[in-house]
């Protein structure tokens, strides 16, 4: 059962990832990205990382992707499409990168048995995350609030009417 679910989610993620690259319209690519993120959520649940799965939905599928869609619609990228297509230089650049990625995958697959994934740990569960967040990572957690404050202040400063 778990294996079947893993295969379904993994294949969906891979197919959707290809879809991101192959679609011409950026809006379609963004929606394909949504599918990838959804499939990854399923994988996280299979790993027992429920908190991570929830965050994946809330932050990536919820917030980041909506932002992507907004930007795409606001910019109306359709007009740019033709220009972005013609970049032969980048196409040649793709070859060495594809080879590198292939080599990495090969290495990973070969050494897979030696380094089993750390499934079965309770790292991604809400309680464990909450406990860590308010004990070990208390100070970084508080500093995040300063980062957010600066971001708000900065946005106000830059968007202010002259």
């Amino acid at each position, binding site marked *: 059962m778990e294996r079947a679910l893993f295969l379904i989610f993994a294949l969906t993620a891979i197919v959707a990832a290809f879809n991101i690259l192959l679609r011409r319209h950026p809006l379609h690519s963004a929606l394909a990205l949504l599918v990838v993120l959804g499939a990854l959520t399923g994988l996280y649940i299979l790993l027992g990382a429920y908190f991570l799965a929830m965050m994946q939905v809330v932050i990536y599928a919820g917030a980041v992707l909506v932002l992507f869609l907004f930007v795409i619609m606001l910019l109306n990228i359709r007009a740019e499409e033709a220009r972005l297509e013609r970049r032969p230089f980048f196409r040649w650049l793709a070859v060495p990168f594809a080879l590198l990625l292939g080599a990495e995958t090969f290495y990973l697959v070969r*050494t897979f048995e*030696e*380094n089993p994934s750390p499934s079965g740990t309770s790292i991604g569960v809400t309680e464990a995350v909450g406990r860590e967040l308010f*004990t*070990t*990572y*208390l*100070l*970084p957690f508080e*500093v*995040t609030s*300063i*980062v957010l*404050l*600066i*971001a708000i*202040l*900065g946005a*106000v*400063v*830059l968007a202010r009417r*002259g």
Partner: protein
Amino acid sequence: MESLGITYRVIGPELVLTVTGVLVMLLEAFSPGKKVRDGILAAAGVVLAGVAALALWDEGPVMAFSQMVIADGLRVFFTLVIVLGTLLTILVSWSFLDEERIPPGEYFALLLFGTVGMTLLVASNDLMMLFLALETITIATYVLAGYRREDLRSTESALKYFLLGAFSSAFLLYGIVLIYGATRTTNLAEMARIMSGPLEEAEIVLLMAGVAMLLIGFGFKVTTVPFHVWTPDVYEGAPTPVTAFLSTAPKAAGFAAFLRVFSLTFAPLGIESAADQLASHWVSAVTAMSILSMTFGNFVAIVQTNIKRMLAYSSIAHAGYVLIGVLARDWAAVAFYMLVYTLMNLGGFAIVALWARRGDKWVLIADYAGLGFRQPLLSFPLAIFLVSLAGFPGTAGFVAKFWLFKSAWGAGFQELVLIGVLNTVVSVYYYLYVVIVMFFREPKEEVPRIPLSRAFMTTMVVALVGVFYLGLLPTRVFAFLNAAQNLLAIGAR
């Protein structure tokens, strides 16, 4: 509560700065536009943070907040350098805020929050903390760089800084993740302990990849070649007081973190260990970065016509010199260098900011023609700062370089020191060129008289006294740094 390691004294400087920042921001919201009040409040907060940092001296090396932060000699000294940089930046910004009609509250608040990030970066004892502190700095400085919104150059500068900054942050974060994968910790003290033993081969590979990424990220933040491409454009486009700030305090903080991670945590032990396997690689990478930064920075600075760009390339070259100190693993020499660099660079930029006037218009080196005897209170200090940047004896720049090169020579980096000295000779050309233009070239048009504000005069007095004091009588600061070295951290060896 004891078990969580919550000790407020250890984050005293950060607390003071944050509270002051929030206070300045709130005051601006309720009664806007009071520059003198906001400025004095910000300056007072910064000074108080310096006092709080000095108070950490008696605590000895101590870690707090689950070992997230550390209070040791390195932190205390670098916090003082940062505090000095921010204080001088507030003074340099004084007349700029009036000229550009910028609401002072937000400006000072951003400056203060950025400073919080810097002091936290210096205090970080955990890669997680380090990353957050870096983000705090960069987000504040992105906005500061784009402060003159109606100016195309300023907006371009902010956008370039933002994009490349985000790019480098991604590298840094990826590096941290890989290092975590190899050592299963983000804590630097714990990491040093793990790396003093052997690691599996797969873990070593992971560690190397992570450290390489970390090096790229840091390389961006402290402007070293080949990760320097953003520097000249950002320094040129940002408002001059902000450029002054960018080139000093955040850089000092960046080098402090660089030292803590590379010179202290990843230091070779001379025994069979993961640290030693790693060290030979990062040492050669940093050596290459250092040589490239010095040579490229100095040679490209020669052909610049814009003084802000020239100082940007000079800043890249100085980052190259400082990397020699990182390699020699002599953090005290680096700390002293950054103190001196902060004084002379901020002093120099104060004059550049004043002379550039409203809208940053007079920034070409040719614009300085005839300044010499017509406004000696501008030209003589600028000449002194430039001469100090070049490293003439009698000025602080000489002492700082001498100490840096001496300790690198002792640590076995003779070739690097030779390259550094040759580069210093090259740098004399473009620093002195400005002096020659100021004193011996006739101006094309009438040279205006610029009124000198009290804030400007204070900056000059502080920077000049600093440059000569550290240049002629540096022994007391040396003694302080030596004492600080004994106060070095538990995690560090």
